[in-house]
């Protein structure tokens, strides 16, 4: 385990997090939030913030725990296991963006709020092509007076409803650059999107001559964005791995308990063998997510490759496990009141965010030298 926490500290931290989530993020809570606009639980977020979850990546000098990606990934496993609806993913990406700028003034201004949870960030990253690549960026930035103006469209922006900080990745004359826009700035239209995963706060944001402050230095800033996306992918992989494992656990539990034909259904090979195959999926997802996080924490040369691998391996494992879980449960999981479909919805969403499995496989092959 590569982190600034000792193994004991990590265990204790995760244990507290689990207790908090068991208490404050039950299935009932998740379902309640699904029905509320924005799906944001300010109370849960405040408690997570007290524990330091939003600030895991932020160095202590700026108010965070400075625990690094490996601990973040483990925390995401716990959040993913209970489908916690939080703005953590945006927070992670925003934090990594700000840190990637290497601008002490910006860091000092933005990181403390991100670390203590008082700042909820939304990041306008991709345009309607929605590939989370430089080519997909569909907001243009033009210098205007002392500042900049933004025009264009950002799609699938996460957590925009609850956000009080908006970072925008836009195409400036000198390349991709990072901008900050005030909440409710003139010319900006936030259109919430109905998401299949009803815990997800998604929006399209339109920019028409929106005044913005440029945060990044002159020159093409895509490398900073890609690094932040990779940090986001590590967090997402953790969420997927944690969700996969939880679904696997309650599904095998059901297979042990549910009796048909006078036998536990898990005694039938059809179910037993699906479970064995899913154990491989589940454990591989955990391995992939943790390895990627540790590689990133260590600054290993193969970290980007490990992240690509984790991205598609965890996405696919989560989708497959949640899909098979419904089949293994039978009729009960075809009902709305059963949680299986909530995880399937999340798995399908996670498989699209920050780049598809197919795109991540393609990136992986390139990283293998192909």
């Amino acid at each position: 385990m590569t982190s600034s926490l000792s193994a004991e500290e990590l265990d204790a931290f995760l244990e507290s997090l689990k207790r908090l989530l068991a208490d404050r993020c039950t299935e009932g809570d998740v379902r309640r939030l699904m029905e509320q606009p924005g799906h944001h639980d300010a109370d849960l977020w405040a408690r997570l913030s007290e524990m330091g979850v939003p600030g895991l990546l932020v160095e202590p000098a700026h108010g965070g725990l400075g625990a690094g990606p490996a601990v973040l990934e483990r925390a995401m496993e716990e959040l993913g296991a209970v489908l916690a609806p939080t703005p953590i993913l945006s927070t992670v990406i925003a934090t990594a963006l700000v840190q990637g700028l290497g601008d002490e003034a910006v860091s000092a201004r933005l990181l403390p709020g991100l670390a203590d949870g008082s700042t909820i960030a939304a990041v306008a990253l991709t345009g309607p092509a929605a590939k989370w690549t430089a080519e997909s960026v569909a907001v243009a930035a033009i210098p205007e007076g002392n500042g900049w103006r933004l025009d264009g469209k950002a799609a699938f922006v996460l957590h925009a409803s609850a956000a009080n900080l908006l970072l925008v990745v836009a195409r400036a004359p000198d390349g991709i650059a990072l901008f900050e826009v005030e909440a409710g700035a003139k010319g900006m239209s936030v259109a919430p999107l109905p998401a299949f995963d009803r815990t997800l706060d998604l929006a399209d944001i339109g920019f028409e001559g929106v005044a913005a402050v440029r945060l990044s230095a002159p020159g093409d800033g895509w490398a900073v964005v890609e690094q932040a996306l990779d940090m986001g992918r590590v967090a997402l992989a953790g969420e997927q791995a944690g969700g996969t494992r939880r679904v696997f656990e309650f599904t095998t539990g059901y297979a042990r308990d549910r009796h048909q034909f006078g036998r536990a259904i898990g005694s039938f090979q059809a179910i037993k063998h699906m479970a064995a195959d899913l154990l491989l999926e589940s454990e591989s997802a955990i391995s992939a997510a943790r390895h990627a996080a540790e590689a990133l924490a260590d600054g290993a040369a193969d970290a980007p490759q490990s992240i690509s691998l984790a991205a598609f391996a965890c996405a696919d494992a989560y989708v497959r496990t949640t899909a098979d879980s419904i089949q293994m449960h039978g009729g009960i999981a075809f009902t709305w009141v059963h949680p299986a479909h909530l995880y399937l919805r999340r798995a399908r969403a996670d498989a699209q965010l920050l780049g598809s499995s197919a795109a991540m496989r393609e990136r992986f092959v390139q990283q293998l030298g192909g």
Partner: protein
Amino acid sequence: MTDEELIAEVRGWLAANWNPRDKVQAESFGRSPYQSFLEKVLAAGYAVPSWPKELGGRAMTPAQGRLIEREFAAVGAPGAGQDRHNLWANTALAYATPEFRDEIVPKLLTGAVGMCLLYSEPGAGSDLAAVRTRADLEGDRFRVNGQKVWTSGAAIADYGMLIARTDWDVPKHLGISFFFLPMKQPGIEVRPLRQITDEAHFNEVFITDAFVPAANLLGPLNGGWKVLQTALAYERSVMGDAARGPRSGKGSPKGDGALVELAREAGVLDDPLIRQEIAQVTAWKILNRMNNARAKAELKRGTSSPIMSLGKLAMSRILHQEARLRTLLLGADSLLEGPDHPRAEDANFLSLNAYFTSIGGGTDQIQRNIIGERVLGLPKEPEIDRTMPFREVRSG
């Protein structure tokens, strides 16, 4: 009577009695808005032509029956061929007492009563013989208590075909009885069941001290398992292809080229990966059609073809794979739902509703057992609960 004469007769009758503009959708759960027409169909002997005359038939051959059906179908008229298709009437015919049969069958054939199925329970899904709903004889009626689930049409039904346990001290298959349970009575509560698709096509039915006359028993007391098998066989032969495609239909071109069109609209038709997937899913659909056509061609009258049993399994694979492909086609757009995003709505709906086929009416796993055992002659698994008294069986 020659076939030509029969055709002429039916055509003449339809011309006199049926207005093609009245065309209706087939209604499988009984009560019909066309009762008066259906009464005429029955009176003319077209409803159940192969049945004996005293039951409303004309003792015709199945081939003659199909001629009549074809004529009715040609003008969109309902009511013919119920000797092949009417689950309820056939079951009653085979097993009801003469008195109850004579009372109920005409109502079933004319859509005068609505029906529902009270088979599955929360603890008895794949394993129907494990039902725990109980029916206890009290004088000339049974008192019924229990819970049923996955019941379509329960809210409007007049009767439910019910399996309930009437003996707890014998092996599970031997203590079940089959009833026509009156649904319009206190003690029956119907609650819509919300599905993962956010629809509610089914209900839960809570039965608390409801009553069914002993006369409504089908088959012998404790002989309900055999009645159920007959009813299920009818159901299977009627169900055909119950799989539903995408919900909105807006994002869904039709025909063998549908997925090609969808990919073209999504701007990904040049993606070689997607092209291969389109080929595979489209091929499976066409192959399923070919298999069904071959099964029908090979079908000797009254016997079922081995290929027939594959349709549901094949359809399950097609639906799940099409859902995956539609998701792949859409990419991030599949994050959405709702009427403004019909293609995403379709992909997501299908990804959930595919389980209706892969779980409903027997999971794929049960279906593979059935194919392996009944079609391929592979031995059954040891059944540990086949002989022990039901009281001792662990279920649920």
